[in-house]
């Protein structure tokens, strides 16, 4: 059982008393206006920032206790940041993967083996020996995903993975995330793309001014347009269409676009 819990981080009051639990095996979408603290929240999820007040639990364990294994924690929570440019360190794709694997505590032989299996799984053999600075943005994002998944985390956190990607790339990226999720990883995505949220998420959490202000299924969350407008968000276009056509039914039935 995974449990992450925050309370009161007074650093610039970005987080404002978050009490949030992430359940295993679900697909979470985190939405909220820019500057509401999403990225800061993520940095607490594997201990890159330490909350000044409150506790973070991971797998039922208080991670601020003495003796908590943070290295292990960081391997179990994989974060893909917004800008892939600032994550790729090695000059060659192959080396970049090797760095991730080495940090997962593998020795050279295992790294070679794992490399082969990752290359196969993510279909990157055609650019495995390319320099990272020649990759396109889509490829760079794909590579950061590969690198994060190399340590086989239990919770995968993605910060706006699909910005600047076109529809085809987005689709491919999300299919891969779907595969990752089916293999047993909990996935948490921060995004501004409401269509995507509606199609993909099991649970939508709405963040505003450092708090989680709403949480529920996409149908529930998008049914309450006024509350979303209050936190400077909006429902997707098609929900507005639906509501315009059928004012009597507030909830859009989910099966519509399956």
């Amino acid at each position, binding site marked *: 059982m995974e449990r992450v819990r925050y309370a009161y981080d007074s650093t610039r009051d970005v987080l404002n008393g978050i009490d949030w639990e992430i359940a295993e095996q679900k697909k979470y979408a985190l939405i909220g206006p820019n500057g509401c603290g999403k990225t800061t929240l993520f*940095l607490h999820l*594997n201990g*890159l920032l330490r909350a000044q007040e409150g506790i973070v639990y991971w797998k039922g364990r208080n991670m601020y206790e003495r003796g908590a294994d943070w*290295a292990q924690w*960081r*391997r179990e929570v*994989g*974060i893909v*940041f917004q*800008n892939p*440019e*600032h*994550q*790729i*360190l*090695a*000059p*060659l794709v*192959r*080396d970049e993967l*090797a*760095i*991730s694997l*080495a*940090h*997962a505590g593998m020795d*050279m032989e295992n*790294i*070679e083996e794992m*490399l082969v299996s990752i290359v196969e799984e993510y279909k990157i053999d055609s650019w495995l*020996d*390319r*320099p*990272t*600075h*020649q990759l396109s943005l889509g490829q760079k994002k794909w590579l950061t995903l590969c*690198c*994060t998944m190399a*340590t086989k985390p239990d919770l995968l956190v993605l910060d706006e993975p699909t910005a600047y990607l076109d529809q085809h790339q987005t689709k491919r990226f999300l299919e891969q995330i779907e595969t990752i999720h089916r293999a047993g990883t909990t996935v948490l995505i921060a995004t501004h793309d409401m269509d995507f949220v509606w199609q993909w998420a099991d649970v939508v959490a709405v963040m505003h001014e450092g708090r989680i202000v709403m949480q529920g299924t996409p149908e529930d969350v998008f049914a309450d347009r006024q509350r979303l407008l209050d936190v400077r968000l909006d429902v997707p276009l098609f929900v507005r269409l639906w509501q315009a056509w059928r004012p009597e039914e507030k909830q859009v039935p989910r099966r519509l676009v399956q």
Partner: protein
Amino acid sequence: MIREFDRWAYDNRLRTWRAEWKLLLTFAMLFFAMIGDWREQWLVLVGMAYWTMGRARVPFSLYGKAMLAASAFLGISLLTLVVSVSFPFRLSIVDSQLQPAAELAIRSLAAWSCLFFLLVTTPVPELFAVLRGMGLPTALVELCVLMYRFIFLLEQAAAELMLALRARNGGRHWRHGGMLMYQLWMKAWQSYEAFSRSLAARGGMASIVYTSQPPKTNMHLADIAAGVVMVVLLGLEWWGG
């Protein structure tokens, strides 16, 4: 230019050769160019041109452009040799220096073509892998590898900043140069913070390993033959006089 050279380093036909061999070839030829006289130097020049354009398939346009730039610089350097200044301000050309200047020119171009061959056929990370194998301190090699990555990051930033400036009809004032430097430094600093964070997320600043191995090694008979002929010729030339 830097991106073009770098792209060819990965896309040329000799990418499949082991970096060690290319390094060895370069240094052997460089050695002959430095100690030999003009005949060896011509041979080296022709030989390197063959390997660069004939075997590695680097287009003549690129080779010619680079050669032209190098020659231009060489011309400037030579100018300072053959021109003499005397007081009061008077410039003249020293005839006796023309011969040594010509010899210097051919030596420089021969040596330069060795360097260019290495640059355009071998990706820099593979060279560092070789250096690491030769026992250079890991700290130095890691620094080089990181720097290689960051050079292209900052170069991209600089190029885009210049483009945006040109789109606004700017880019010629020295103040813009200063601003560009300031922005680049800010970018470097921000990247430093972002990189440290993402590295920490991946488990901290452990040593950076690399497995860099060129894909497959196959050397063709033609190259071996050409190499042997070159070496024999050079040897004969050298011993003969």
